[in-house]
């Protein structure tokens, strides 16, 4: 009896113990998922930035950058007692060595921004001049775009100053319907700093009749400097269910401030037979960016996926126009937009 009672007691105790032991076994199989250490430590944050960019940035080779050497140089300037503003300044300087407009470091108090891809070049555009002397403060405006028909040559004009919002297909339908009777179309993307890449196929589809190769994209397949995928051909489909603009000349106006998605749009349009790129070389930005972050909460953005043109050539450094034209700042101030004038002139001779 005593033995049976003891057996029952042991069983009652051992049962819960066995179950709890089973529960404890499982956490032992998982890795710790917590961050230990001071999130504001300058060295930790610097090292994280160096590692993230080193593993994921995509243009080191094309730009001839020795990232290990750069990080070594700048790490020597890090001190344990740096305040956040000092650390931010140092990191920003280091990122500027990438010479990439897609690279930003964002802290709560500031965002770094490499400007030399456009600041070292003429602007070739003045919004006031366009609006006052050419559009007469008129034209139709919808979803950030302005459009009108220039008389007497009935040349359609669409200004797309940004791709930062998705261009609604219905709005493009209205605009292209309004251009139905025109002899040609000018698409003015000067100062367009980019935005949604999905606007590119949306727009390009309005100007093609069949599947058209528009470029190549690839990505990092690992953290190593040579770890890249094979280029994937990007094909654009005609927007047959929407209103298209076909069989007539199209001129795209560009300047150095056309960047990223606007650069990509220029690259694709340049490969189309009825399209002429006119103006200045674009600003580049041919790498699709990625985001990451540092332990102190700052975020970093950088080019990660190179997008090349239809000939699989790099577009990071900009697209050359078919016809190079620049605007003189004094002329712009006087109301003369040489790039727009040159585009209008291309249509005018046919009637003369």
């Amino acid at each position, binding site marked *: 009896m005593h033995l049976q009672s003891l057996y029952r007691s042991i069983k009652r105790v051992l049962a819960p113990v066995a179950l709890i032991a089973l*529960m404890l076994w499982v956490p032992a199989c998982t890795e710790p998922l917590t961050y230990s250490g001071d999130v504001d430590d300058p060295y930790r944050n610097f090292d994280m930035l160096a590692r*993230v960019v080193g593993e994921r940035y995509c243009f080191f080779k094309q730009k001839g950058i020795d990232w290990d050497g750069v990080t070594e140089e700048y790490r020597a300037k890090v001190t344990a007692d740096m305040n956040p503003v000092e650390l931010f300044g140092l990191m920003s300087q280091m990122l500027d060595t990438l010479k990439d407009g897609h690279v930003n470091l964002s802290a709560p108090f500031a965002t770094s921004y490499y400007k030399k891809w456009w600041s070292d070049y003429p602007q070739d555009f003045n919004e006031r001049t366009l609006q006052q002397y050419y559009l007469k403060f008129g034209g139709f405006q919808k979803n950030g775009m302005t459009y009108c028909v220039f008389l007497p040559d009935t040349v359609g004009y669409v200004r797309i100053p940004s791709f930062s919002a998705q261009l609604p297909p219905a709005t493009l339908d209205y605009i292209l319907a309004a251009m139905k009777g025109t002899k040609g179309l000018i698409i003015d993307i000067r100062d367009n700093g980019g935005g949604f890449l999905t606007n590119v196929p949306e727009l390009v589809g309005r100007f093609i009749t069949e599947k058209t190769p528009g470029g190549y994209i690839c*990505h*990092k397949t690992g953290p190593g400097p040579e*770890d890249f995928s094979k280029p994937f051909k990007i094909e654009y489909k005609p927007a047959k269910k929407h209103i298209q603009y076909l069989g007539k000349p199209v001129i795209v106006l560009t300047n150095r401030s056309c960047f990223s998605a606007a650069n990509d749009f220029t690259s694709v349009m340049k490969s189309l037979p009825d399209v002429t790129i006119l103006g200045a070389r674009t600003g580049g930005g041919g790498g*699709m960016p990625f985001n*990451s972050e540092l332990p102190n*909460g700052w*975020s970093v953005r950088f080019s990660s996926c190179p997008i090349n043109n239809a000939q699989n050539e790099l577009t990071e450094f900009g697209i050359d126009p078919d016809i190079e034209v620049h605007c003189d700042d004094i002329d712009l101030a006087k109301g003369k937009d040489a790039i727009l004038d040159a585009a209008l002139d291309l249509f005018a001779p046919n009637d003369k």
Partner: protein
Amino acid sequence: MTILILSVTGTLAQGRHHHRHGCRDYCRTEEQPECFTHRPITSVYGLEIGGANINCNYLSPLPYAGSGVGVYGGWGKRMKQHPENLVMAFTAGLNMTSTKNPSKSAEMMSVSARFGWGPSWLHEFGNGWSMTLGGALDLSGGAFYLPINGNNPVQAMVYAGIDLTAGLAWKTHFWRLPVTLADRASLPTLGAFFCPQFGQSYYEIYLGERSGLAHFGWWGNCFGINNHLTMSLHFRNRKSLVLGYRLYVRNNRANHLTNQYVTNAFTVAIQIN
């Protein structure tokens, strides 16, 4: 996110004793002499709330920690071929988490759903002890969402495969109330999971570059477990209150990317036999 197969198979094991009692009572009416072949559906409807940890280096090199909530359900039935030992269960669950980075400056959210279906073999040792062993088809999916990443804000999680399931239950009494203590675990064993390339954007996938996205998963690269410790308090009206603790782990590694998802949650459920 896994499967809760054993929640149900376990509860079937728990409920068997009580079902027999109920069935005997029912037989007294002599309207259902075949009551021992009657195969009722056992249902479980539960809520869970607890902590969550996420490590997704596609979105961030930093681990995120926070909390999560979820609902789950399970429906089980003894199989006609071997009603004494074979049970079939269907389970489903939906979870949401909200987590913060170490500096608390960014929030990562996740939504995930899971479905499972499979049989288990039930064996009773006597003295209130029983165990279940089985397998289950596992389909689970969801996404991590990190809004501060303007260009790569989402990482998707998709898994389809077969889980091994096992459980141990012990029926006892707390005062005069029948109680079952149980621990049940399911382990994703063989399957396939989705993972983009190291630096591949979803835009590229949208454009059509879809090679190398599906990966064969096994314990070496796709470890997970759904471990649920429960205490069921069985009431006379064939309903039970099930209190528990669930550890849910999903890890997968491919293309130099790691997705780790862990929740620790207290669960409360109603079981209807």
